């Protein structure tokens, strides 16, 4: 009897063990939580077709290299030419030189002179195509084709939108300190196609792009006083923004391009105003008996960040677009000036004076402050449209020059404009 029960019990236990055995094989999980912060090695051989194909590939390569996030490989190490853009490359050739990504392309010219560029982005290790796009443009716009390809590659491999098909408007400086010539100038973000927009007969300051990239607003200082201008860079048409008895400075477009915020001085008191460009109606936003200046809209246009010394020293404040709800967001030591809201709304860049002038960023609520640069005199930050890169001017013994930094402060380098320059403003992506 007992033996029979024991048999049942044993059978039951065996059954249970059989049922539970698979569960004992826990899944293997490997955790990777360090990684390396190195530029991604990428191969960009010359595009097939006419000679411009090689030049376009060069623009793509230079853009990606300058971002600091990519390391274009030396073409002399390539083991094979990619050939037809529609044919899958031999990935082993590219893996053997440690290329993690490969860009191949083909350029053709139409009978009417337009060029068409096809390109493919390949993941060499996974052995698959990541992107395949075609751009068509007039022949003289071949550089923009390269920038657009670079933007697409950048976004696919970093996840952030590209910023290469953009322009920079800035103040080109020349002459001695006593006889400084300040001309409004514009160039592609890679330094190509520089040109002057004003002749240097008067001083210009703080140029800013409109959202549609066709207009620039800036401050002009003449012996007769200061004015804020709107300049259409396509037509060259220029107009003033209202007439004020005192100084007018630091203009900046609203995100929708319909308004301009600026600072105007009246009776020794600077306040912030907003003008509707259609009706020219002006609305005063601040009334505090202190210096309120450098307004910058939030991306949704609902708020402005600005600089005020109402607390005893220049600090950064945020208010609603109608002037209500003013509150201070900077509380660190030192003096904060020139706040600029990032296009993605997540950061405010500023100049901080504390043992020198430095570029920093903080969250719009004042938290998470970082100082990104460490030279003696830096100012005037402007955001790339992807909110990942900041351009600013750095003053050295040889004058002011343009520099860029990423928002980690890891990748700081001179902008590709070798002459004296200050007050940069980055355009949105071109259309």
């Amino acid at each position, binding site marked *: 009897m*007992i*033996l029979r029960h*024991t048999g049942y*019990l*044993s059978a039951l*236990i*065996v059954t249970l*063990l*059989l049922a*539970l*055995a698979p569960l*004992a*094989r*826990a*899944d*293997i*999980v*490997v*955790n*990777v*939580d*360090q*990684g*390396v*912060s*190195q530029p*991604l*090695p990428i191969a960009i051989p010359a595009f097939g077709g006419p000679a411009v194909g090689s030049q376009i590939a060069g623009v793509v390569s230079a853009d990606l290299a300058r971002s600091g996030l990519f390391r274009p490989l030396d073409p002399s*190490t*390539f*083991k*094979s*030419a990619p*050939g*037809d853009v529609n*044919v*899958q*490359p*031999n990935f*082993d050739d590219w*893996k*053997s030189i*440690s290329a*993690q990504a490969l860009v191949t392309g083909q350029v053709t010219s139409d009978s009417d002179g337009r060029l068409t560029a096809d390109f493919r982005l390949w*993941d060499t*290790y*996974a*052995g698959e195509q*990541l992107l395949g796009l075609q751009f068509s443009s007039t022949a003289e716009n071949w550089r923009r084709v390269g920038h657009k390809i670079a933007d697409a590659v950048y*976004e*696919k*491999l*970093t*996840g*952030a*939108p590209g910023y290469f098909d953009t322009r920079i408007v800035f103040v080109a400086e020349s002459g001695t300190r006593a006889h400084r010539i300040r001309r409004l100038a514009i160039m592609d973000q890679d330094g190509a196609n520089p040109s002057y927009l004003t002749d240097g007969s008067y001083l210009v300051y703080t140029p800013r792009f409109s959202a549609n990239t066709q207009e620039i607003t800036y401050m002009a200082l003449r012996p007769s006083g200061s004015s804020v201008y709107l300049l259409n860079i396509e037509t060259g048409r220029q107009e003033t923004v209202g007439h004020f008895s005192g100084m007018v400075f630091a203009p900046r477009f609203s995100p929708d391009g319909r308004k301009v915020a600026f600072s105007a001085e009246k009776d020794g008191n600077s306040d912030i105003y907003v003008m509707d460009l259609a009706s020219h109606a002006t609305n005063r936003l601040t009334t505090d008996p202190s210096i309120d200046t450098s307004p910058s809209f939030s991306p949704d246009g609902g708020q402005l960040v600005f600089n005020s010394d109402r607390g005893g020293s220049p600090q950064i404040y945020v208010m609603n677009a109608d002037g209500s709800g003013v509150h201070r967001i900077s509380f660190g030591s030192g003096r904060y000036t020139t706040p600029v809201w990032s296009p*993605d709304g*997540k950061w405010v860049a500023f100049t901080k004076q504390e043992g020198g002038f430095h570029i920093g960023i903080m969250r719009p609520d004042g938290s998470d402050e970082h100082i990104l640069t460490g030279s003696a005199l830096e100012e005037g930050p402007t955001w790339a449209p*992807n909110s990942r890169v900041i351009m600013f001017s750095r003053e050295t013994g040889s004058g002011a020059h343009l520099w860029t930094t990423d928002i*980690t402060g890891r990748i700081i380098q001179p902008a590709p404009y070798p002459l004296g320059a200050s007050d940069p403003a980055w355009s949105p992506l071109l259309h």
Partner: protein
Amino acid sequence: MSAYARRRDSLAPALIAALAMHVGLFVALTIFHPALPLPLGSAVPINIVSQAPTTDSRQAEQAPQTQTAQVEAPVPQAKAPTPPPPPPPSPPQPRPTPPKPLKTVPPPKPALKPTPTPAKPTPAPAVKAPPTPTHPSKAPPKDTFDLNALAASISRASHSSPSRPANAARGPTRAETAPVARVDAGQGISQSDIQGLSQLLNRLWLKNCDSGTIVNVTVRLAIDNDGRVLLADAGGREHAGDSAASASAIRAIAAVHQAAPYAEEFRGRTFSVNFDAAKACANR
């Protein structure tokens, strides 16, 4: 290793345990109920059942040897049915443009790393069970039963056991004494193997901290018997519309591809790799 063989291996401990229980019960009943009248006809089945597990219960105590066997045995079995190594996964490459002008230039040997041969994960002999010198005990078929051989094997085991514990892993690394089951228990992959692969992937992973959005990625990975990546899948994130997730997945997948060929312990297996970008980017 085939699915059937894997399942069979996983059931072996359960069968051994069941048989050991039979023996235990039989012995207990014999000792505590000596006067119990046993029907003569039932003696035969009881003897068969009781004698076999006497050996197996010993083996169950020598767990490290058994686990090692699970790893080592299936590998040759799995290799056997695949006589020709499968061709490289890259599909046919038409190469309509055969001339390779760049070939004339002597390709400077890139100093980077021509072949990504991963450093063998740290061997860690203390944790990993040493190669079993007592393999022969597993070799004989079980369909014959020899009491003399059984006794001899028991006596050999008892003689040799004192010298072995010096090298054997103790404490929590042993499944039999650990307070909780090891993750890799019964899988033939030690924690040091996993740690070694983790270190390798940490060196190969170009983390993506620059998109403004930090995305953690889990890659499901299948390794073939030659250590190559059969499948690396981030749950479709690599092809997702979310560009930050896609970029992060692409980089994670690139890292696992570069780690090939995988060490022997990982061959023929499927496992997951968690790329913790939140932690990695916070630490940079």
